[in-house]
């Protein structure tokens, strides 16, 4: 039966279970790029919420390379790729009754977006 021991747990708390990867993977986007979120509806795990799908925004920042959650759960491996902070206007998300001044930033993986 698999066992977890104290040394393992001490080591875990030193690394904090990091999911960032130091890999030289080319980003598909850069800050300032206009993007449209994909309309994917996987029955499994994703971190692309419904309210963002098909919406248009722009990339604020590239956070570097991380594991890709969707494939990590589907048994299709880590598929490391860039995560970006992407800004969407409130009106893009919630319609013309929303404030013209407000916007929302969300962290999106490379595979969640296409160029707009």
């Amino acid at each position, binding site marked *: *039966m*698999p*066992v*977890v021991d104290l040394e*393992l*747990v001490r*080591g*875990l*708390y030193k690394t904090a*279970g990091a*999911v960032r990867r130091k890999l030289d993977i080319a980003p598909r986007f850069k800050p300032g790029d206009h993007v449209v979120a994909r309309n994917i*509806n*996987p*029955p*499994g*795990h*994703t971190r692309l*919420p*419904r*309210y*963002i799908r098909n919406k248009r925004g722009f990339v604020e920042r590239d956070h570097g390379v991380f*594991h890709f*959650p*969707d494939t*990590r*759960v589907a048994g299709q491996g880590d598929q490391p790729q860039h995560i970006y902070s992407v800004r969407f206007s409130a009106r893009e*998300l*919630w319609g013309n009754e929303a404030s013209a001044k407000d916007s929302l930033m969300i962290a999106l993986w490379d595979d969640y977006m296409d160029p707009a």
Partner: protein
Amino acid sequence: MNGVHDMGGMHGLGPIVREENEPVFHKEWEKRALALARAMMGGEHFNLDEFRHAMERIEPSRYLRSSYYERWLEGTITLLLEKGVITQDEFDARLSDLAKGEG
């Protein structure tokens, strides 16, 4: 998955109520729930993404009624059973013992 956890934009859930001077844990068992989930991930019985998905798979009406650590505990139990770390019989026997005060 398009589950109830994906709440952005929903109406009717009421305001977010912030608890003043909220403790890190409200109950002692929550400390063990946190430690158990972390240890299981450290031991590579499941990964963080599988853990989140296990919580997303909680039956919707129970998901909405559950606290943060109740979801952590249920997600952990689901994965320990699915991954074969414990068997359903072992789990049921333990619950039975606890119910009889023999735990």
